[in-house]
């Protein structure tokens, strides 16, 4: 099979999505995203908002979470993300 050839670029880590843009890219409505922003689970202009939201949408779908459960999952996912970055930094220092 002939391979399709695609050029692509890095996803900007610091990019800020509007609520409408985020809603179009994950399975949350604009109103739900507003609530997640209000309770602090979704930081405004937060780094890597989209992958965390996608993971939260998967967890909501697969475990039937309500929005409070989603908010808690997002907070914990972000903590895991931070801890894994720190672990990776420390692992680089020691073999």
């Amino acid at each position, binding site marked *: 099979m002939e391979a399709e050839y*695609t050029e692509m*670029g890095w996803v900007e880590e610091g990019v800020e999505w509007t609520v409408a843009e985020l809603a179009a890219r994950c399975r949350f409505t604009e109103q739900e995203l507003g609530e997640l922003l209000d309770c602090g689970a979704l930081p405004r202009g937060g780094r890597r908002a989209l*992958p965390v939201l996608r993971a939260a949408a998967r967890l909501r779908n697969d475990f039937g979470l309500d929005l409070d459960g989603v908010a808690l999952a997002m907070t914990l996912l972000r903590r895991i993300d931070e801890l894994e970055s720190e672990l990776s930094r420390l692992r*680089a220092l020691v073999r």
Partner: protein
Amino acid sequence: MKYKDYYASLGLERGASDEDIKKAYRKLAHKYHPDVSKEAGAEARFKEIAEAYQTLKDPEKRAAYDRLGRHAPGEEFRPPPDWGRQYAGGGESFEGVDLADLFAELAARQAGAHGRRASAPIRGEDYELRTGITIEQAFAGAVLELNLGMPDYDPSGRLHRVSRTIKVRIPKGAADGQRLRLAGMGGRGMAGGAAGDLYVTVELLPHRLYRADGHDLYLELPLAPWEAALGASVEVPTPGGVVQLKVPANTAGGQSLRLGGRGLPHAKASPGDLYAVVRIVNPPDPSPRARELYQELATAGDFQPRAELLREANRGS
């Protein structure tokens, strides 16, 4: 079409109740969900569990599945006559059709029958995948061929898995966990909606020499005791080639010596650094002359390597 035993996937008997199905799914999902599990193969196992649950939790889909009869997992089979007309919108050809896609189609028709099918344009789904690259590829850039199994509709409107190969240029300067976006390479949109995007997360594969932290690299640098004590000029490998590093006198074990800009390149900033972390190694089998010199060293001064250790220990007692 290949048979899948959805009951076995959830560890259930055929006569399991709806409650049993839900409980079995929840238990397995907690163990294998790829967003919470670190077990090897969790993602594939969860996919199997979720696929089974999506069908068995729905009475109509479960009845349709049960009517397929019992077969060995992976066995090629044909649904009974009339099954296609009753459950799959007509047609008796199931060549190359995946069971999961067939039931997804059934769900879509159920939604349509209940008037929930949207006529407004729907953007196609975004897909995510991970790919491993070596530190050498991150340093120099690389072209990778990714093989994807993507859902697509055939001319009769039936969902099939289509194998697709995409050649992707990974720009130089990738760091672990960075994501690339291929616009329009995700799922097809519906009712005139735009296609989704494909996101590729790059993972750096373990390397026998370097460990990466962002764009910085770490390398273990063995030094002989006299090189560390007296200073030396030593050769150090870097992804861009071997360079000469000046080791200052009195270098201690565990100390990091920085080679500025010798780490991974960065798309928008200066390259990362390479840190050579010193490890002092003794000759494994010193000659009699070397032992004599060590003996001389032992009596030459009054160096107390554990003085600080003992002072701290005494302070605490």
